[in-house]
């Protein structure tokens, strides 16, 4: 069962899958993960040349004005390659914030270098206590002349250590967890008062703890409406959620294929283990979960791309996250189980796909969080 793609989408899919197949072997990825950056800047420039970095950014600034469905097509392919380059942090998150929330000057100044691969961004929005609540912001921004002074701490900032620019959420008014009173600020990664502690993540990426102590920024560092950034944050995270769900679909597809192949080749008790009905049905459960996930994720992408209603977008994103969370657990766990001891080893790529799939499941909120959110949004 295939998703109906436009001609352009099919070309994008083919080119991305070709890149993964030719230039992004698992061994190559393993080498990249072991480097200090944890990814390849050459690859990043390649992505820029292929037009991927500007895929969903405004044509006015050199992008392709693509929809979330286009992004999903690309992300699924990147998922197949378990790509470690910082697409999520720079393009989906920062790019999305600039696209939906940047003023003309900010877009003109920041989007072109982003699209060309010249600058890297990170979005610092979670805090130690915030869990998945985007409004749970305790970092403060105090007015200071024309500008602001930021104080607080951000946690698990994806690609936070290597980013040239951070986008930071901070509270200008209201109580913790009020939706009103949150602003976004552009902050240089090496600004005075910013300290960053980078670390690897368990799925081969990089995160950082970011402390902000009296970080002074000018007035034009404000991104989006002052005190009214919550809807912008929510929109971008909802879009990015669906995008990583599409990535997860690519990851799942590899796991299903690898497992079915393993069942066909691995022999036990004198037969391929794929001759055992219990394992056959397990593989069918995995396949079905994959097909249901892919269909729902693309539907969610279409819905969001076409909707001006924040609640409708939120329902679509949460539905996708619930589906991917559940299906990802099933597919990931069973891929390991059916590979037996081999699946447990660092040597086999299967375990790395499993880890990435698991972490996508929890990123931006796990299935149970999104099930509650979906419920709270009411019957739309």
């Amino acid at each position, binding site marked *: 069962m295939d998703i109906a793609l436009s001609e352009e989408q099919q070309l994008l899919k083919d080119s991305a899958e070709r890149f993964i197949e030719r230039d992004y072997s698992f061994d190559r990825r393993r080498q990249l993960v072991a480097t200090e950056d944890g990814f390849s800047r050459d690859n990043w420039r390649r992505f820029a040349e292929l037009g991927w970095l500007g895929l969903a950014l405004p044509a006015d600034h050199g992008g392709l004005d693509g929809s979330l469905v286009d992004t999903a097509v690309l992300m699924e392919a990147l998922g197949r390659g378990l790509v470690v380059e910082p697409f999520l942090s720079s393009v989906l998150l920062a790019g999305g914030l600039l696209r939906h929330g940047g003023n003309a000057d900010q877009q003109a100044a920041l989007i072109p270098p982003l699209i060309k691969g010249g600058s890297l961004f990170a979005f610092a929005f979670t805090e130690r206590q915030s869990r998945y609540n985007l409004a749970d912001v305790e970092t403060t921004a105090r007015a200071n002349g024309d500008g602001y002074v930021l104080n607080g701490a951000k946690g698990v900032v994806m690609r936070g250590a290597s980013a040239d620019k951070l986008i930071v959420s901070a509270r200008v008014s209201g109580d913790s967890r009020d939706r009103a009173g949150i602003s976004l600020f552009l902050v240089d990664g090496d600004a005075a008062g910013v300290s960053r502690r980078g670390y690897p993540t368990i799925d081969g990426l990089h995160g950082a703890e970011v402390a902000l102590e009296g970080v002074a920024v000018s007035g034009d560092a404000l991104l989006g409406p002052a005190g009214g950034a919550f809807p912008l944050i929510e929109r971008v995270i909802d879009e990015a959620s669906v995008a990583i769900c599409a990535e997860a679909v690519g990851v799942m597809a590899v796991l299903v294929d690898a497992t*079915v192949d393993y069942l066909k080749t691995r022999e036990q008790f004198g037969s391929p283990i794929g001759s055992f009905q219990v394992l056959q049905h397990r593989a069918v459960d995995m*396949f079905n979960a994959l097909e249901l996930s892919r269909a729902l994720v693309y*539907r969610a992408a*279409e819905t969001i791309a076409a909707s001006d209603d924040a609640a409708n977008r939120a329902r679509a994103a949460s539905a996708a996250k*619930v589906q991917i969370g559940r299906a990802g657990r099933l597919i990931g766990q069973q891929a390991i189980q059916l590979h037996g001891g081999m699946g447990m080893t660092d040597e086999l790529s299967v375990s790395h796909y499993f880890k990435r799939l698991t972490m996508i499941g929890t990123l931006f909120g796990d299935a149970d969080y999104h099930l509650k959110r*979906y*419920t709270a949004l009411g019957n739309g």
Partner: protein
Amino acid sequence: MELKLNPADAAFRDEVRAFMRDKLPAEIRHKVEIGLKLVKDDYVTWQRIVNAQGWMVPGWPVEFGGTGWSPIQRHIFNEEMALAGAPRIMPFGVAMVGPVIIAFGNDAQKQHYLPRILTTEDWWCQGYSEPGSGSDLASLKTRAVRDGEHYVVNGAKTWTSFAQYADMMFCLVRTSTEGKKQAGISFLLIDMHSPGVEVRPITTLDGGQEINDVFFDDVRVPVTNLVGEENKGWTYAKYLLGHERTWTADVGQSRNQLSRVRKIAAEELVDGRPLLDDPAFQLKIAEVEIDLLALEAVLLQVLAAEAAGNPPGPEASLLKLRGTEIQQTITELLFEAVGNYTHPFVGDALEAGWNEEPIGPDYAAAIAPRYFNWRKSSIYGGSNEIQKNIIAKAVLGL
């Protein structure tokens, strides 16, 4: 997360919705909503109203009465019909034997049978399963022996839904015992009013009598009632099963039942507050809603592929599997919602003529029987285990 509808489709939906609102008889709607038993006349009445509108066989080629709708329109139609509380269109003619006759029947068969399906002149039933054959459908033993211009049929079919109403049966019969068991099967159309046909009801665990044993004792069937070629019936049967599996996904029906869950949960109290306000129960409903969204997304892909000329292949087994799993989960939610009043069971309470006061809330009587009855859905139409075997073999190559 509503389907994104373009203006034309939105207008279509409104048209269908208006039709359902204006034309569905209130009495029938009430029966469906409360879960009372429908009798033959209810189905026939409704199907003729739908046919008068020209909407009886949307999936057929336009020349035979099809509507030429897009997949999304067909889906909207099914969904609106279910949401309105209309009885389902009986699938045996429209979704099962009709497509087979269109694909494999001769002109005379097309001219005779297809219009009678549109007008519900013939009520069809399906003669596949036999006592003993179960999931191993091809092991069937009912024999048809050629005798001049007739086949003489002897044997028995079982689990035959609505055979008591049926005028015609499409029936798999054994015309040869040579070669593989699949190779000797033919697809025969049998007049249920023929001498030698006997229908005996089977009472199911919910007290229902919708399924039957059907016995054939020297039943003479004209050879003109053979569809396609002799001994090729297995091919036609498999073609039909693909259609059937798409149909069994039944997303609209499940969505209608989910709204019933909400309605009942709004009336049922837990510690003085509506069950519907209970967070844990809300999460269960949401979980099914999301499952249904995913199933619907796959269904739309299958319908789109079908419209593009790719009939549903083994992947359609996914629709049957998940569709019935979701249906069964919803019967569990309904059961849970009704609580203590799942216990009372007055068989007559589900008959339309019953005039006594209900025991407990009026929606309660049908809930437990439905839960028990619906266990069939993972058994019939190829058990869910068989569907997994099909996917394992035909899709995954295991």
